[in-house]
């Protein structure tokens, strides 16, 4: 498993553009999302800890981060705040194993687009991710017109 992770990071190093960073401490979840995104031709990097995830985000500045709310040592909400500080144009999609709401727990200025409850439907995941990526692509193609 660790060999695979390094492989991905090497592959990530090779790519110049990353669409999604997945931060989840569960290897199975990381693996399945990786498989899904590669089939949909979405470039993806993943991390098993918040700390690692923040490093990836600051390096690749992806338009989307998928963050597990419950991470081992570092809370997913905390991780999301750090990510946002690093990269202001990023969007965040939370995933959670608890049936919980994050209202009131998340700073309102955080660009959270939604919460995915485990177990999730891969169709819905793809749809949400693609919509974010399309928006990002649009805004990237159209230069900022105001100043």
């Amino acid at each position, binding site marked *: 498993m660790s060999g695979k992770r390094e492989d991905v990071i090497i592959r990530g190093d090779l790519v110049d553009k990353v669409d999604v960073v997945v931060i989840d401490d569960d290897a*199975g979840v990381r*693996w*399945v999302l990786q498989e*899904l995104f590669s089939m949909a031709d979405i470039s993806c990097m993943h991390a098993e800890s918040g700390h690692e995830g923040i490093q990836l985000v600051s390096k690749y500045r992806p338009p989307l981060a998928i963050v597990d709310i419950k991470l081992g040592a570092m809370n997913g909400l905390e991780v999301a705040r750090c990510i946002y500080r690093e990269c202001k144009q990023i969007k965040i999609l939370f995933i*959670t194993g*608890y049936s919980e709401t994050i209202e009131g727990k998340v700073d309102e200025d955080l660009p959270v687009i939604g919460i995915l409850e*485990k*177990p999730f439907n891969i*169709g819905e995941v793809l749809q949400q991710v693609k919509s974010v990526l399309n928006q990002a692509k649009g805004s990237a193609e159209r230069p900022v017109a105001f100043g």
Partner: protein
Amino acid sequence: MQRMITPKWQVFLESLAGILKMSFVAVSPAGEIQAVYNPKPPFSLLAGYPLLERAYRGFFKEIAAHYKPELEGRLIADPLGLPAVVLSLREEAYLVLGGCFTQRDHAYLAALQSRLQSLGVSQDNRIWLQMTFLSASDLSSTAEHIRVIYRHLCRTLDETTELGQQMLLLAAVEEINKLMVESLNPAKFNLERILDLVVSSLVILSDVAGAWAFVCQDPGKTLGCYRGQCTDLLGHLQEAWEAVAAGCADPVRPFLSFCKTKIPTGLSVEMETLQLKEASACLGVIAGGSLSAGSALTAFARQLAIALEVASLYEFAQQRFGMLYNSIAHGLIVTNMRGEILLINDQAISILAVQGISLSIGSSLRNSGFYRPIERAIDNVLESGCSYIHQRAILGRNDRVQHIRWDVLPFISDQGAISGAMLLMEDITEQIAFFQAVRDWERLAAAGEVAAGLAHEIRNPLATAKAAIQLYDIVGDQSKQAELLHRLDTELERMNEILTSFLETTMSTGNERMEPLYPGNLLCDLEALLREEANINEIELVFDLPEDPLPPVLGDPAALKQVFLNIARNAFEAMAEGGRLIISLARSGNRLQIMFCDNGPGIPEEIMLNITRPFFTTKLGGTGLGLSFSSSILNTMGGELQIESLPREGTTVKIMLPCYEREA
């Protein structure tokens, strides 16, 4: 049979003889000579001269037979023609005083000589020379003097007799008091009886041989005679008493109120009654003759007032004490040396009532069918003075189940002797139910917490598995499909592992199998396994177990082994770079201490706070159940888990378990 002079008159006559220095004779009422005092002629000659003796005996018989009060103090001539005076000592005796007028009157002496001669006394004796010479007036005044002394003496003696009777009365009162004191003795503890006696009874004292009787206020209730022969009186007394009791029903009249009632008996006694304060009861004294009923009654009333005061004081104390001992939450039973109940409070009565047992003062717990160990404990306490502290008992069955905490303690007197036993019982049925409910609630809360963790843990593999199934349809590549299936199998296995750990945590608290066990032995059982794992992880494992045997602890051996394994494995995992783990066992007070001391990286403070919470983990792939499970196992065994950690120096996990001491 000859009547003897009673000793008190003998003393009187002897002192008389000492004063008078003259010869006199005490004669019985039948005319017999009782004694001769200051023996001088002629009375001293009687034994030697039968004729003379016969003459004098005749003379004395004559006096006794024909004595008239007019004779008292008058001069008469005796058989020798000498002057004599007769005095009567009531029915006791007659005194005959004798003497001679002159030794110089020759005619008088010649007549005397011829009379002596005719009665067989030789004239050579000149016995008149030994006689007491008195004038007629001297003799008369001496006689008068004796009569005064005698009357005075009689009056004194009468008074003494009366005093004696009063003493007798007081003795009777004392006896009643003793009876009351006896009634007040905690061993009898019958306040009703005391009050019955003191307040509600008529006490009748008789001066006849100190007989006394009492009758209860309820005229028909009791009529008893305690001493003497007053049965004949009782009928009359009862009638009189009923009349008196009817007349003094006013409860607030002053303390003493005398009234006199004649009792129509042949003995012509008089009854005085008095009313006692705040009680429509009377005291009565029947008196006859010289007894001063009033003074006896006053003395008696005084005694009773004291007794009454003591009784009311006692009642007051009793009420206060009653309030006290009924206000405590414990059931309290006090017994005497025979195991008979002296005191039982309401709580004890209600505890016993649940078991269908009714006990009261005077009865015994022994063979009451209450609870054998308590009965035996009381017997042992009474016998040896030992104590039973904080004992537990479960009484009864089904709907009568009571959980009792009990103590039996000896009562030790000032002299250090055992004087009784005290049983304290606390019904802790509700407490037990409450704590059971709290435990259930805690378990539910823990289960809720665990279930929330479980949901998250299960949903990770579930998410992966579900996604894998969905991907299976999308991918066409067979090798990819095989990978997905393999992944699916792995995730399902993970779910199973999580559920197994979860069940271990929750089931262990509900399925307690407690037995005495030796933690040292468990560690020895685990040693081989732990050494193998330590070798793989390049860890030095040190066992520090004492050679001396340590007391056992109470617990589930399989669960405790699991705890030891969990903690040791945590240490191994923490020391990924190798290190040393020391496992030690020692006694600390009444607890055993098992320590797992590693020199790994230590645990950060923020993690320490959550370390035993279910599903809290910092390990990749960990369930977060290990320490939570261990902690809950140890809690059920009455032990605890302490974790001390210093960053970069290592972690010490300390298990404390209470020693299991078998009851001595």
